[in-house]
């Protein structure tokens, strides 16, 4: 049959929902295997993924890797459908909040045994990231990259208010005091943005106050813990003191935009937005470590992992590829592009040097104090309620303590169903 006819048949099969073309093609070529690798960030990381796939084939000539791009907006919907239909990519990107559902419902291949058998040194990755992709004592993914949160500040606004730049010695008291000095609500300038955002904002202070979001065994919500409530209260106080715009204002214009436009003197944001601020014209900013809370220093760490689809036809080859993805060589390729901090120890330097005007070392140094992004088996079942409740509390729609306790009850009910 001619190529054209095959192409047509394949197209027809895809339309009919049977995307079996690629895998059968891989097997027919006499021992040669084609793996598919699913990911969602073509703009920043496509080049690196492409290069990694090619390098891998150099050392494993019998395995070809096809990278398969899906925009993040559709990534998980598509992945969920294809995993249900048995046709997910052999290896794909995974994030923390989605991991629990995929692992607990058998969509991911556990790799603890393979890690042990091949003596892969997981200590080369931040421990909190290994933990993030471990469920019930079994590891399912090897870390790919990571991000932590830092205290971004606008130097011009600090200079104008005569306030010293933040540094590693800052505590919550320094933050509050200086945020007040930096605020000028009449001009629409505020000390800090107390947005009801988890990773960037309130998760960090919950941990700094000694609280928690989900108990380590994933069975209990931490929102009725006094320390957790203390961590939330810092932000609602900042809003009340007019050191932060109201939640309403930050809904109309996001804190990221406010910071870019010189309307926020400080804003806690992840390493992933460094390129955004680096590219903002007229923004004279830098970044410092997050201030220490009453109990400890802490920052949320999150990062992606490469995982293997449980029903892959080529588990051995997929593992070889994941092992390569976790190697120094593959991480170095990632580091060179500068989009993310590679997970492999010692390779963050390349990223840090990619934007010399910022003290990006802060993000790397904070890994020692980092706490994994809070998740449970089915994070999505409570994250909407969490966002609703905290948004309401921060915007004055409900008493903070009562709202947090109510949230804890709802969240415990959701956790009990897992």
């Amino acid at each position: 049959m001619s190529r054209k006819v095959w192409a047509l048949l394949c197209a027809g099969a895809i339309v009919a929902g049977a995307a079996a073309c690629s895998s059968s093609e891989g097997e027919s070529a006499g021992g040669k295997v084609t793996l598919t690798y699913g990911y969602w960030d073509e703009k920043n990381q496509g080049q690196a993924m492409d290069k990694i796939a090619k390098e891998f084939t150099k050392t494993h000539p019998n395995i070809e890797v096809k990278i398969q791009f899906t925009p993040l907006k559709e990534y998980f919907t598509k992945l969920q459908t294809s995993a249900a239909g048995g046709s997910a990519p052999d290896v794909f990107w995974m994030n923390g909040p989605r991991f629990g559902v995929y692992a607990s419902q058998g969509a991911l291949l556990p790799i603890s045994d393979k890690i042990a058998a091949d003596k892969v040194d997981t200590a080369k990755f931040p421990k909190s990231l290994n933990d993030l992709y471990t469920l019930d004592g079994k590891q399912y993914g090897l870390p790919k990259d990571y991000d932590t949160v830092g205290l971004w500040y606008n130097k011009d606004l600090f200079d104008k208010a005569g306030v010293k730049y933040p540094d590693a010695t800052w505590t919550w008291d320094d933050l509050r005091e200086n945020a007040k000095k930096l605020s000028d609500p009449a001009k629409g300038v505020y000390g800090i943005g107390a947005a009801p955002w988890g990773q960037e904002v309130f998760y960090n202070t919950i941990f700094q106050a000694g609280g928690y979001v989900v108990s380590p065994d994933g069975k209990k919500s931490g929102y009725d813990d006094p320390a957790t409530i203390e961590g939330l209260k810092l932000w609602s106080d900042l809003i009340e003191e007019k050191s932060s715009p109201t939640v309403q204002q930050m809904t109309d214009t996001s804190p990221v935009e406010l910071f870019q436009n010189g309307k926020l003197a400080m804003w806690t944001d992840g390493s992933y937005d460094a390129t955004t601020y680096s590219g903002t014209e007229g923004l004279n900013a830098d970044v410092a470590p997050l201030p220490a809370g009453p109990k400890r220093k802490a920052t949320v760490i999150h990062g992606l992992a490469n995982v293997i689809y449980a029903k892959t036809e080529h588990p051995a080859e997929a593992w070889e590829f994941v092992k390569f993805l976790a190697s120094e060589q593959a991480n170095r390729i990632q580091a060179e592009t500068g989009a993310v901090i590679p997970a492999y120890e010692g390779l963050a330097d390349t990223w840090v040097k990619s934007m010399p005007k910022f003290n990006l070392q802060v993000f790397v140094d904070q890994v020692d104090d980092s706490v994994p992004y809070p998740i449970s088996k089915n994070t999505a079942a409570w994250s909407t309620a969490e966002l609703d409740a905290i948004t309401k509390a921060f915007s004055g729609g409900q008493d903070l303590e009562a709202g947090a306790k109510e949230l804890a009850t709802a969240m415990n009910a959701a956790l009990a169903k897992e």
Partner: protein
Amino acid sequence: MEGAVARAAAARAEPRRRLRDQEWFWGYAMIAPLVLGLGVFYLWPVVQSVYYSFTEWTLFGDSTWVGLANYRELFTGPENAKALKNTFVYAVWSLAGIPLSILVAALLNARGLRLVSFYRTIYFLPVVTMPAAVALIWRWLYNGDYGLINYLLSLVGVQGKSWIAEPSTALYAVVVVGIWMSVGYNAVIFMAGLQGIPRHLYEAASIDGAGPVRQFFRITLPLLSPSIFFVSVLTVIGGLQMFDLIYLMFGKANPAYADNKTVVLLFFNKAFEEGAKGYGAAMAVVLMLITLVLTVVQFRMQKKWVHYA
């Protein structure tokens, strides 16, 4: 005279009877693609949804039969009552767009109006614009700090709000956008309706001494009532399905979001974000029944006020 008509009809009916079998076949053959399409893409999903509403799903497609559990949960959740109320409020308020559309249609229909096609384009533009673009523009207009609306209000000394971030105003802010988007489409239907009203009725009325107001209420409105009926049925159905504008305009960490969810938005949360597909199906089925009941009620009520000329 009458006999001749009957004879002619009988003569025509004769060959028709012979053709009937063939016509029957071709008639159904012609509508088959449509019926098949309706069946596959509309009816079958409805049947499936009803079935799924009695099941519980895991994320990766295994379902178990749970009987009425989803429905029981549906009637106990406080969120659902609120969402239903919001949906009704939205649907009822969006009816306010109808008088506005009639006014626009009447003005565009006025004799001697210049640049008619220009105005028609202007009013119809929102209909063909993507909801995402509409939502984006209105978000800017409604911005509490930098929005055009608050700027205009400040000129007359009024302090504006963060319109779409305040629980008390957010839903109405969306209603305004919804009406703005629908006026053009409705006006086209009303213009057609207005053009269908015979001129001579107005001439007779003015000879009898009726002024323009009386003419409007005694001639225009009654004869436009079939169009009004059609538009109001569509508006209510569209209002009950409100999703895109709220989803696009609110964003996630919005203080107004939790209190102003509509049924379809809640359905989206449950079925696609939280993965509770069976529960989502139950919501969809209930919404379908509500829509059905409201539509039937409207059809019943039309006898009271709709005049077919």
